[in-house]
């Protein structure tokens, strides 16, 4: 596995959908259960991954185009 992994916003959104499907919960259900630590450790890892995805997506001020360019160049 490479130390630096580049993702496009689309790829991150797809991963987000896959992760929610994996735990069989909506984002709100997962968030609410995470808040009271009513999750298994595997579910907690999914929640933490989604938190990270949302941080990255929140910083997407440049749109998908440049992120795709970065991804294509380096990955």
């Amino acid at each position, binding site marked *: *596995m490479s*130390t*630096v992994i580049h*993702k496009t*916003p689309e790829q991150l959104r797809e991963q987000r959908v896959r992760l929610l499907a994996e735990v069989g919960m909506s984002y709100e259900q997962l968030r609410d259960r995470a808040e009271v630590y*009513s999750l298994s450790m595997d579910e907690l890892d999914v929640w933490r991954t989604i938190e990270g995805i949302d941080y990255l997506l929140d910083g997407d001020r*440049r749109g998908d185009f440049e992120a795709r360019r*970065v991804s294509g*160049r*380096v990955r």
Partner: protein
Amino acid sequence: MTDGEISKLDELAAGFADDLTALTRGVLGEDIPRFAALNMGQRVRVSPITEDEKVLGIPITITGEPVLNLTARYYCCWDGSSTFLATDRADFHLHYSGIADPLIRFEYVRGSKEPPGAHIQVHAHRDEMAYLLRLADSGRPKRGFRKRRLPRLSEMHLPVGGHRMRPALEDVLLFMEREFAIDTVHGWRSVIEERLKFWREVQLMSAVRDAPEVAADVLRAMGYRVDRTVPLPRSAQDDVKLYWP
């Protein structure tokens, strides 16, 4: 971002992730999962991850038993005018193995003054503390009461020295070794000492940039000759992280 900035960001992110891998493996052993940097645009998340790119905790053993799990995550952003990755957020959550409710959380939020940007949250219980957390008819106690949230000691943000003097992952590893005698590998202490020195010096440099006149006065008092040849841009005190809680 220009191609040069993209390359620089990759270099910094890879270097940061590799440093964290070297630290944790140098203290806990070569089986510890590698840190990876997940990058999208100007933001980077650095943490150990699984093959399918999920956040992965670091197993910590005591006398060979994997009884603890440490999650270490850094959220960083690229400041195009700088030559470093700024840490937007960082958290180290220590769990008893298999229990989702953490024992202790060490957290940092770069933009936060209230609660303090660098803080520790302890997941424990004291009746007296719960009482105090809802006693006052103002501030956080009142807000917690209005929201009908049960008072928990873990909602307290214990300050730990402000933005510049906050604990690093090295401090958390030292804490676990000191308090729990976690399993470590030969040479662990020198790995931590070297990294901790680096961390403290980086933070010292940031603090000096925050308060250069104070630093210059101290150096002059020590016999150094310190002259400023170019005017420094003055930040409003409210913007200076050194003075933030």
